[in-house]
């Protein structure tokens, strides 16, 4: 399968990978889709409008599943050479997450920041934006997290694959390169693992267990400051906010709310552990009726 890279990009790629690629036979365009999200420990509160969350006082981090994607992209580069581009959609605070990916070792970053995208809930719209970026920059393999832990939609990677007309492989928790154009993956399914094989180009969504993401080293952090990071808006991509932004969404969030609190539970009392065990069994049978 031919690479989807325009030939004018080859010179730029050679420059970006600092000639590391000279000894390798293949030039691989590796793209990682990444999202900045609230830290898992963050207290999430509903905003006044009731359609989103309060964004002040939140610690923002790279989506944990995207870390696996960045790591896998870096490993592909170490193996085959090439360039790792991180692409993200987000407001200006998301630049920090892109820099983190650069500090881990990615070569360049692209952030799409446009007011028309704020509050957008539809994975299709976001997928359209990302697919446009990918078509512009070229790609051989795309890695992304299996889901973002804010909206938990778990769709963007699959949507991007559809829009680009390439296969997708989801919930990948093991990956083996058979050669520079083919890979074999393990997908986590109910009760086991589905092992699939496919060629590039392909979109891979990453599940926990795929790899151990590296920490950004101090030299990495320093180098990241000089790596190219572009911020684009929709007009710059030739896209219309009315189509791919919130205004064009095919789904709409009506309301966001706190789930009802569970009723307070009860402690099982007893003089000994055996007594408590017996009481527990009885209450689960007679009161809760679950055994």
């Amino acid at each position, binding site marked *: 399968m031919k690479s989807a890279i325009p030939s004018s990009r080859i010179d730029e790629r050679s420059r970006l990978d600092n000639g590391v690629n000279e000894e390798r036979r293949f030039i691989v365009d590796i793209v990682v889709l990444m999202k900045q999200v609230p830290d*898992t420990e963050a207290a*999430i509160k*509903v905003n006044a409008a009731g359609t989103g*969350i309060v964004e002040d006082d939140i610690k923002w981090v790279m989506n944990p599943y995207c870390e696996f994607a960045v790591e896998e992209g870096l490993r592909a580069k170490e193996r085959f050479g090439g360039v790792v581009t991180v692409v993200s959609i987000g407001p200006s605070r998301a630049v920090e997450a892109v820099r983190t990916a650069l500090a881990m070792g990615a070569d360049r970053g692209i952030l799409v920041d446009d007011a028309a995208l704020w509050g957008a*809930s539809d994975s*299709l*719209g976001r*997928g359209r934006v990302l697919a446009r970026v990918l078509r512009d920059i070229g790609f051989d393999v795309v890695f992304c997290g299996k889901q973002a*832990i804010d*909206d*938990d939609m*778990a*769709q963007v990677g*699959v*949507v991007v694959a*559809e829009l680009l*007309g390439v*296969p*997708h492989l*989801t*919930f990948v928790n093991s990956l083996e390169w058979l050669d520079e154009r083919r890979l*074999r993956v393990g*997908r986590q*399914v*109910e*009760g*086991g*693992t*589905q*092992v*699939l*094989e*496919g*060629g590039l180009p392909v979109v891979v969504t990453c599940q*926990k267990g795929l790899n151990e993401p590296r920490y950004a080293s101090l030299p990495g952090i320093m180098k990241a400051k000089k790596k190219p990071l572009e911020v684009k808006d929709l007009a710059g991509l030739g896209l219309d906010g009315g189509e791919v932004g919130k205004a064009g*969404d*095919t*789904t*709409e*969030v*009506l*309301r*966001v709310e706190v*789930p009802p609190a*569970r009723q307070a*539970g009860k*402690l*099982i009392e007893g003089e000994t*552990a*055996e007594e408590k*065990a*017996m009481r*527990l*069994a009885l*209450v*689960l*049978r007679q009161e*809760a009726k*679950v*055994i």
Partner: protein
Amino acid sequence: MASGVLVICEQRGGVIRKVTWEVLSEGRRLASQLGEELFAVLLGGPGVMGVAEALGHWGAVRVYVAEDGELSDYRGGPYVRVIGDLARRIGPNLILMGASSTGKDLAPRLAARLGVGCLSDCVGLSVRDGRLVGRRPIYAGKLYAEVMCKGVPQVATLRPNVFERLEPDVSLRAEVERLEVQFDEVDLRVRQVELREEAGGRPDLTEAEVIVSGGRGMKGPENYGMLEELADLLGGTVGASRAAVDAGWRPQSDQVGQTGKVVTPNLYIACGISGSIQHLAGMGTSKVIVAINKDPDAPIFQKADYGVVDDLFKVVPPFIEEVRKLKAE
């Protein structure tokens, strides 16, 4: 005009997956509310036609079946091709599927092909003025969102073990239509090498009705034997906290939590698990939660319906004996 509720059914090895009955039940309810018909589509390898008839007992008026060697095992390419072609032909109003590993792989791609978004992992569905509204957890279940479909078809995946499964009515019959399938090279680029199934015969965590879970308090992998014994007695499966998985005591596939699996059993017994926010994200919607932990301040007791503050090594063995006695009655 778009009409009808199409349920994408799932089978593996010629057996219909449990979540399909739940989605058919909910599909039937919504179809009735909309005054529209319920349809089912089933894909599989040679012989799948034999299991299609049962789908009619849930009220589908027509079951579309695609039987082809390329469909024996699930792959996104051929499956989305067949169902996408069908959807374009029959123009359903709603398309529903279980949010299983297959549903989460298939539905978003199908929706994008049809030019719409998809509501993932819904725990509740309703219709308002003809529009499908899904209730779904966000921020790992810290909040819930009500999301409405604005386009057509209206596509949603349903979380397993949440929707009520109705009783089938064997007097109901569906018309079965065999689909002619056609594939292009681009649909078949991925091939399955094998489907490696875990030994043990216990249900998958995401489908289990009872889960017995162990955390750091279990002190080592050798102690999980009693949890397995209890799980087997109760017809359930064994889970683990992230601490136990990171320590190498249990495989990643056993992890319950935000970066593990989200589970919805009737009964969740947490042994030696402190109950971090991330763990609660994975099991907080269990119907009944039991916590056994010798630390009275463990956060899990805030969420548990029944708590035992004691050494789990002293509680679990007698508990197993009591359960054994109760089961024998």
